[in-house]
Structures are given as C-alpha cells and as structure tokens.
C-alpha cells in the first residue's frame, strides 16, 4: 500500500544526517557535561557547539540559548519564569486566543497563582492585530506572549509589529516560535522580542529537545529546579545526543531554509488548489498567504474529522484534525473557534502538513483518495442530507 506521512506538524521525521550526528553520543561518548574528565569535556564542548548552531538559526548569541526537553517546557519556562521574575512590577499578562496549550495552560496556572490574563482575539484568518495587543497593555502588564506561527492553521503572526507596541511600554514580549523556527526565517533581533521558544522536532531534529532563547540580561525564575546546568537556569543532566541532534538540525535548516520553503509551498499550494477544485463546501482555514509553507488546513463541511482520518489512514495517508472527536478532551480546536468558525464546521477540520520527504505524487494521491472518502461520509451524514433537501427546497 502507498503511504504518505502528511502530519509533519505533529512531528517531523529526523533527517538521516541528524541521526548520524547523534549516534556517537548514544554509543561511546556518553559523558556528562558537568563531569571533570575527558568524557565530560567532550560532552561539554559538543553541547556548546550545538548551542552555537541553534543560536545561529535565530540570529542570537550562543550564551542566550537555554536547552529544554521540549517546546512545551520552553513555553512553561518562559510564561511562568518571566511572570514570576517580574511580579513585583505587576501581575497582568496578555496572550492571544490561539496560543498552543503549553502557553494557554501555563497562563491558567498563573491565574491560580494570582495573576490576571487577558486574551487578544484574532481575526477570521487567525491574525493577531498589533493594535489590539497594544490596547490591552496596562500599567501592570509585565508580559505579552504571542505565538510566531500557528501549527494548526498555519497563520504567521506580525511579531515585529507587536514588538513595536511592547517596546513603547517596555513590556516583555515572548513568542512561541515552535512552529516557525527552522521552518521560516526567524531572527530575534528583527523580531524585536525578549524571549522565544523553539523545538527540534519541528525541523527534522529529534524529540525531547527544545530551547528557550532569552535576550541577554532578561531575568527569569528557573522552571526545573536543581543543579547548575544551563548556567543555573535549567536543571537536569543535559541530553547530549538530543542537543547534538538539535544543533545539527538547526544548521541544516538554516542552510536549506529557502529551498525547503519553495518545495513545501509548492506542495501546499498544489493540495490547496486541487482540493478546493475537487471537493465542494470546503473552507481553507488560516491566512490565505501569510501562512507556513507546509500547512494546508481545511474544514470539510457536513462530516467529521476523525472519520476522515481513519479512512485516510486505511489508504496509508497520515493527517490530523482539530475536531472534538479527535481530541482526548472531546473539545474541538480553540483555534478554529477563536477564528469564528462555527463548531459544526470545525468538526470537519482536516490538516495536511508537509515535510521534506513528501512529493507531488503524494499530493496527487491524496487528491485521488480523499474525494471518495468525503463522498462516502457525506452520504452517511444527516447534515448533508438536510443541506441537500434545503437546497432542493430552496430552488
């Protein structure tokens, strides 16, 4: 059977070069970077090299990178750590309505700790308006966190504009760039932010490693307490192979950025055009142009996402959905809701996310197998039946 992995937003495969770079550290070079001997020395030098590679990817200085175990941890660290470090100045933070749960739920935790959180709404394409952010900054606002790109709908946010607003008031700005860094050009200086989260598994590096970039001089309270690793800001034995993998993946991403973007956007556009022209009652979600190169996200009306995923999977195609039934908590995507998409339409959410391994052949394969799947589910759907009746009645 044909197989097409079109779920790179969930996790990207690791590039063979990256695995190769990691292997020695899984095998013979097992030292702990904190140790005072040759094994330790080698491990330490290695992670410092990787730190430089990650810094280079985002135009940062090497010593500003703090490795974490995931994008989620980087976001928890940023939100909780920056808020706690600033709380003598105020207890109000601003986030957008479409943040990843690791930001959103960290903000909820802050609320339990006595902070106040304001959510900025987004437009129907998922865009955060810098003016809307500015309006919500108060005297006691100590932190603004707006994601760089949304992995579910692909929209890229105007971070540099938002930074202008936060600079005026001297408010710290964090951006969750997990879906952006390594995928589109991200430069901390051009963005003008104070803190930025990224994760290797979004750009063909391993799972289990992310980073928080923190502008030099920015105070933060540690999230993982313990030893003195990462300059005393993040405790726990360094995950050397994963860090090496992240470094290598960052280097490759930086080098190949523009060719990758060209490739992925070609695949994305081919799918968007093909799908829109073969399947009726389909909505492209997210911004039509200001979107991640590999993101093709839709709502297919009258049917539900999980059922589509199962039938796609039976054809070897991997995708994802923001429908309620596909989530553990049985809640449909807060991102789609924030964009004003009605819940019954959000149920038909379907996301294809492209990666370096994908081909035009795979796009065409989706365009071949998806329409019959949609037809089949619509044939079963009472909503579709009603719609047809209304239409007939209406004429």
């Amino acid at each position, binding site marked *: 059977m044909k197989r097409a992995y079109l779920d790179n937003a969930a996790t990207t495969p690791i590039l063979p070069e990256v695995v190769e770079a990691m292997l020695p550290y899984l095998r013979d070079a097992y030292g702990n970077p904190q140790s005072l001997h040759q094994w330790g020395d080698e491990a330490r030098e290695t992670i410092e090299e990787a730190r430089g590679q990650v810094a280079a990817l985002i135009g940062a200085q090497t010593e500003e990178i703090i490795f974490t175990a995931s994008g989620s941890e980087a976001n928890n660290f940023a939100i909780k750590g920056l808020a706690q470090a600033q709380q003598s100045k105020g207890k109000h933070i601003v986030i957008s309505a479409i943040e990843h749960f690791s930001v959103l739920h960290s903000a909820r935790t802050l609320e339990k700790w006595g902070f106040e959180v304001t959510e900025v709404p987004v437009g129907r394409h998922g865009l955060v308006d810098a003016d809307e952010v500015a309006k919500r900054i108060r005297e006691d606002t100590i932190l603004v966190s707006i994601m760089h790109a949304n992995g579910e709908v692909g929209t890229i946010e105007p971070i540099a504009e938002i930074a202008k607003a936060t600079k005026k008031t001297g408010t710290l700005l964090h951006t969750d760039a997990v879906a952006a860094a390594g995928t589109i050009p991200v430069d901390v200086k051009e963005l003008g932010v104070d803190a930025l989260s990224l994760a290797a598994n979004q750009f063909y590096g391993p799972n289990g490693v992310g980073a928080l970039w923190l502008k030099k001089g920015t105070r933060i309270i540690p999230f993982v307490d313990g030893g003195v690793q990462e300059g005393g800001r993040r405790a726990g034995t360094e995950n050397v192979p994963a860090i090496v993998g992240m470094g290598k993946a960052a280097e490759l991403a930086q080098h190949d950025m523009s060719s990758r973007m060209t490739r992925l956007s070609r695949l994305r556009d081919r799918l968007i055009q093909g799908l829109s022209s073969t399947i009726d009652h389909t909505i492209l979600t997210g911004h039509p142009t200001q979107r991640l190169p590999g993101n093709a996200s839709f709502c297919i009306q009258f049917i539900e996402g999980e*059922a589509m995923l199962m039938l796609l999977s039976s054809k070897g195609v991997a995708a994802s959905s923001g429908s309620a039934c596909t989530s553990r908590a049985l809640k449909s995507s807060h991102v789609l809701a924030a964009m004003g998409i009605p819940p019954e339409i959000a149920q038909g959410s379907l996301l294809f996310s492209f990666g370096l391994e994908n081909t035009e052949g795979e796009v065409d394969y989706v365009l071949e197998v998806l329409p019959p799947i949609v037809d089949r589910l619509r044939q079963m759907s009472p909503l579709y039946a009603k719609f047809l009746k209304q239409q007939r009645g209406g004429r």
Partner: protein
Amino acid sequence: MPVYSEKVMEHFMNPHNVGEIENADGIGEVGNPVCGDMMTFYIKVDDNRLSDVKFQTFGCGAAIAVSSIVSEMAKGKTLEEARKITPALVAEELEGLPKNKYHCSNLGAQALNKAIDDYLKKLGKEAKTRRRKKDEGA
C-alpha cells in the same frame, strides 16, 4: 487512531444499513453537530417488529460503528426487545469502546429509542385519529 477493537473497525469501514427510509414509520434524531455527533435512525415496523432499520450519522468512527451495530442488533426484533438494547450491550457487542467514546454508544441506543417513541406517538395519533373518525362517524 483511538484504540478501536476490530469489530469497531469492521463496522466503521463497512457500516450496515446506512441511509434513509422513505416514509419511515419512526424517525429518531439525537445529538447535535455542535457537540460533535449526530445520529438519525429510521425504522419500519411490521407486526410490532422492526422490519427495517437505517441510519444517518455525522460523527467519529465510533459513532458510525455504533450506529451500524445498533441497526444490526435492532433489525428483526420486536419493539419490546429493541427497547432492551442498552449502551452497555452496544459497547459489549462492539468488543469494547475507548472510555471517551462511551457517549457514542449512548447516542446509538437513544436514537433507536427515539425512533420507536416516534413510531408509537404517530401510532397513538393515528389511533386517536381513527377513534376520532369513529366518534365523528358515530
């Protein structure tokens, strides 16, 4: 995928009794698309027995499989027997359902019951109408 049993997968991939019955004797609609699942059951009753059962379902794999198995279980049963199709029996027949999909088995049984209610209501009305007619004729 959620950890679905083979039976669920079977019924999802090849659901039985999909569709609408024209001039159904009873129709039961439950759930709503806002919550994620919606099922409509159509029944045909002959001699107090479900001679035909069909469904339309908007929802996840479990919802579709539940609809299919409920329609199978119900077909040929008397109304009283069909009333005894509980969510637990449905889940059992499907060789289990993931916890967060239990509500789907509820929906299936509910939709069938609603269709029977609908049939009985109509029957009652008909009976009333007939009685009224008789009364009027009298």
